[in-house]
């Protein structure tokens, strides 16, 4: 191997030695650039899946690209499960006058799970009950925003 390298012309030897340095420099610079881009605030709109939003039966999935959130209700606790680790999660329960009550969710074991005690179970009680919800989740400077109406199909 070394003998074969020695047989190469001086320009090939120099190019083979310089190329890895340029690759490492490029990798480091692109990493810095990508990091700075990721920290810039950006907004993404999340859309509700076609099945709609049934919180009680854990069937309420919002998504934007590969990012997905699953919101569900167990007793008095509203839980959010994310496909990526979140920095913050905030839930807004909106009434018929468009006034909202804010619930900042707390991390549950890992940044993939967030929960908070809310009065949501009262609002989504019974088949066909509806509640307007706004949700903001932040991931490394990116803000994922969703507004939707729940539609309970079970008691």
């Amino acid at each position: 191997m070394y003998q074969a390298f020695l047989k190469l012309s001086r320009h090939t030897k120099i190019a083979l030695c310089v190329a890895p340095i340029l690759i490492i420099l490029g990798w480091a610079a692109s990493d810095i650039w990508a990091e700075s881009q990721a920290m810039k605030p950006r907004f993404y709109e999340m859309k509700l899946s076609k099945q709609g939003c049934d919180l009680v039966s854990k069937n309420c999935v919002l998504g934007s690209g590969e990012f997905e959130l699953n919101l569900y209700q167990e007793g008095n606790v509203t839980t959010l499960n994310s496909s990526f680790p979140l920095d913050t999660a905030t839930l807004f329960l909106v009434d018929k006058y468009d006034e909202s009550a804010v619930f900042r969710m707390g991390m549950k074991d890992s940044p993939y799970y967030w929960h908070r005690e809310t009065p949501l179970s009262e609002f989504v009680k019974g088949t066909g009950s509806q509640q307007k919800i706004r949700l903001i989740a932040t991931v490394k400077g990116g803000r994922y925003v969703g507004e939707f109406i729940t539609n309970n199909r079970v008691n």
Partner: protein
Amino acid sequence: MENQQTYWKDNVRLILVCLAIWFTVSFGFGLLLVEPLNTIRLGGYKLGFWFAQQGSIYTFLALVFWYAKKMNDLDKKYKVEEK
């Protein structure tokens, strides 16, 4: 002396061309133009993603041998080739 200067000028020009290609494929295609390139598919992969992961490396390899060939040609032109 004049020969040495034009040899050096040609050498620097070649290096600048190589650096421009290096910048275009690594930063240009892999980062700055990644979104528009991702609309094009190459063998099932998004083109911007492919350039960031593989395409730039292949180009760097090709660049190494292209640069060496061009420099060997320059050596011959200015009669300073290796014996």
